[in-house]
């Protein structure tokens, strides 16, 4: 049992570290290091531009999408090298957030299902950040029940004509392309009538409307499709096989988001270490210490769970299922942490413009963004189902709509 690199790993780490040291946008390092859930913007620069510039620089030097094959813009690295890169990239990795969907989900789906010429055309600019991709799955009528989606694709000659609406599409407002899950046959049971495509987000008939979130920010969008035409060669997988194609994407989504999600613990520990309460320093207070200790062991438990998965990668094995707990644990934890940080401030916790504005604002932003982390990429309830079914081997939910043609499934709960 050790945390040591193998000689090859150490060599890779040294090369990566040297390149990052010489090339990373250091002027933003401190600000990126201090970013926390709900507060990820840069004060004096457009983070989108900074992120794109960093991604392009990495791509030009062969450091983008490390685990992708070289011909598609990657480096052909092993999974462990990708992890080492992330460790070395540190706070600059925050700049990869806007590419997570494209690199973590759209790219792998394209790689598995697109035609060779499309892979060679579309993947390198996706890897280099010159083109941004989004994922168009969720709908007003299909959230956790993704397969309940209603956006129609109908064949007309060599094209498919798309009509419908998507929702919760991260980054659609700055995306160039998207992968789109549609219903091509409403007369068969829901999982069987789906087909996947990719499309140009600038296509006529695509309209993106930002959603104003409970936090006030807009990270997600509604996307409307009105007679949008997609050529058949942009279909991913067979007609009617969209559900299986989407599983490739979703499995990648869960691991990608799970890896990036924050617990809020370092922020809270730092805050409590300097905060004065009525009776003295917060960190000396018994109740505060008990709370901190309980969150500390969750945070360290997640850290070392991911170390175990990384060790499996290092040995060239597939990590076990234990990493599936990451998002579930961190999501509700960050919400509780933010609530508690405000509680410690007493009545003034409600104000963001006080003398503690910087800190109060930080935890308020965290609090307001946190509910989303428990929903996106699989709700807490879906994550528990996944653990119960795939890890513990418990029976799947009883699905009353399983063998019913999609157009015969009830659409209203009451009335």
């Amino acid at each position, binding site marked *: *049992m050790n945390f040591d690199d193998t000689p090859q790993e150490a060599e890779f780490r040294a090369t990566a570290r040297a390149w990052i040291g010489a090339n990373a946008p250091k002027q933003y390092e401190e600000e990126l290091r201090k970013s926390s859930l709900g507060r990820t913007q840069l004060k004096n620069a457009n983070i989108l531009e900074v992120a794109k510039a960093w991604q392009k620089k990495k791509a030009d030097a062969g450091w983008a999408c490390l685990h992708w094959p070289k011909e598609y813009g990657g480096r052909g690295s092993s999974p462990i090298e990708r992890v080492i890169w992330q460790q070395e990239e540190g706070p600059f990795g925050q700049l990869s957030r806007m590419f997570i969907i494209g690199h973590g989900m759209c790219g792998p789906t394209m790689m598995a299902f697109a035609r060779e010429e499309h892979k060679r055309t579309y993947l390198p600019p996706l890897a280099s950040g010159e083109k941004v991709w989004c994922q168009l799955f969720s709908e007003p009528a299909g959230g956790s029940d993704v397969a309940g989606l209603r956006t129609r694709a109908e064949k007309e000659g060599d094209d498919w004509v798309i009509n419908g609406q998507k929702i919760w599409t991260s980054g659609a407002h700055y995306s160039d392309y998207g992968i789109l899950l549609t219903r091509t046959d409403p007369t068969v049971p829901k999982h069987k009538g789906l087909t996947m495509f990719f499309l140009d987000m600038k296509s006529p008939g695509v309209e993106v409307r930002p959603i104003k979130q409970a936090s006030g920010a807009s990270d997600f969008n509604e996307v409307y499709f009105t007679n949008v035409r997609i050529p058949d060669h942009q279909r991913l997988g067979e007609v009617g096989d969209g559900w299986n194609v989407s599983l490739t994407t979703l499995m990648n989504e869960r691991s990608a988001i799970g890896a990036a999600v924050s617990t809020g613990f370092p922020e809270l520990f730092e805050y409590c270490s300097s905060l004065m309460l009525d009776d003295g320093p917060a960190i000396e207070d018994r109740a505060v210490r008990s709370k901190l*200790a309980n969150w500390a062991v969750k945070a*360290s438990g997640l850290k070392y769970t991911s170390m*175990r998965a990384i060790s499996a990668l290092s040995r060239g094995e597939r990590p076990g299922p234990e990493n599936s707990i990451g998002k*579930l644990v961190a999501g509700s934890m960050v919400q509780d942490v933010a609530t508690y940080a405000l509680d410690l401030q007493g009545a003034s916790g409600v104000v963001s413009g006080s003398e503690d504005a910087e800190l109060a604002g930080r935890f308020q932003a965290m609090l307001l963004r946190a509910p989303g982390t428990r929903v996106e990429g699989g709700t807490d309830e879906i994550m*528990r189902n996944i653990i119960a079914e795939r*890890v513990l081997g*418990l029976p799947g939910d009883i699905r009353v709509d399983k063998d019913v043609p999609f157009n015969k499934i009830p659409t209203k709960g009451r009335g």
Partner: protein
Amino acid sequence: MNFDFSDDQKQLRDQARKFLTEKCSPKAVRVVLDGKAPYDKELWKGLAEMGFLGVAIPEDFGGAGAGHLELCVIAEEMGRANAPVPFSSTVYLAAEALLIAGSDAQKKKWLPAIASGEAIGTLALFEGKGNPSPKNVKLTAANGVLNGVKKPVADGAIADFAVVAARTGSSGRDGDVSLFLVDLKAGGAEVKSLTNLDPTRGQAEITFRDCKAEPLGATGEGWSILTQVLDRAAVLCAFEQVGGSDRALEMGRDYALDRIAFGRQIGSFQAVKHMLADMYVSATLARSNSYYGAWALSTNAGELPEAAAAARISATQAFQHCAKNNIQVHGGMGFTWEFDCHMYYRRANAMALGLGSLTYWEDQLIDRMRKKNAA
């Protein structure tokens, strides 16, 4: 990086599991639970023969000379089997105290006897209510004899010797405490069994009256040695707790698959599935924290104090959580004497107190994290 046990260590774990499945069935545990024996003597003998008691004891002192990682994997299996033997008192506490502070003669006398299963040892620290603290050590040592009362002492009624914390100064500092080694069979120590939460591991009150004792480690070093012993034991106990958590989770899972209600397997109801998923989450966090503790223990890293406290808290919480909800999944049957669920519930809650309660370890963890940050 390989943050995992080696193939040899995993093999040892399998071997321990096989042995314990055979020799330590729930039926065997119940003999002790029902008060028909103070501990499972046959099992103890078998553990000695397998080399498990002395796995971390150097060969020079009659052990296998493997290491703490090997001891961790065995500990996990001991917890999974709910073994009714004085393993933690003897191996994690008494033997570790000897390894840290014992003179050559002391080690020669006791360590081979531990490894061969001839001697049961324990740590006599507590004196009634309260967590580990130099202030709570009232038993006195003067002129080579001890006077005072220790309780609860884990496995005290069956122990052959004890490491005893005694007061040797009155400065109000940690240096007031020294450790002593007492041969409990040599007279001067009166032992009384106490009724306790988990009858598969006894607790006792020991009254020392002018009881002869020899110093273990230097005078005034007792608290510093004890802190190290407790940290090591925290990691090793965490592995027992991880083993117990896993077993309780498996029992709940199996029952959820077998039991039919409302015409379905109860494991198909989300309320039950989600409860089991949450148990898996706790058990996984505990396992990962414990692995870090194992790494720190085996390398004697500077991170051990923090890692031990984190492992202790996480594993205590997980075992309590899994044992409690295992009963809930079983419904009424889980609350019967006949079903095994309560054995894990008892063990989980007794282990949560043995080395000091959660409150104590939470406090320790934050202190240690602050120290690290300040450094």
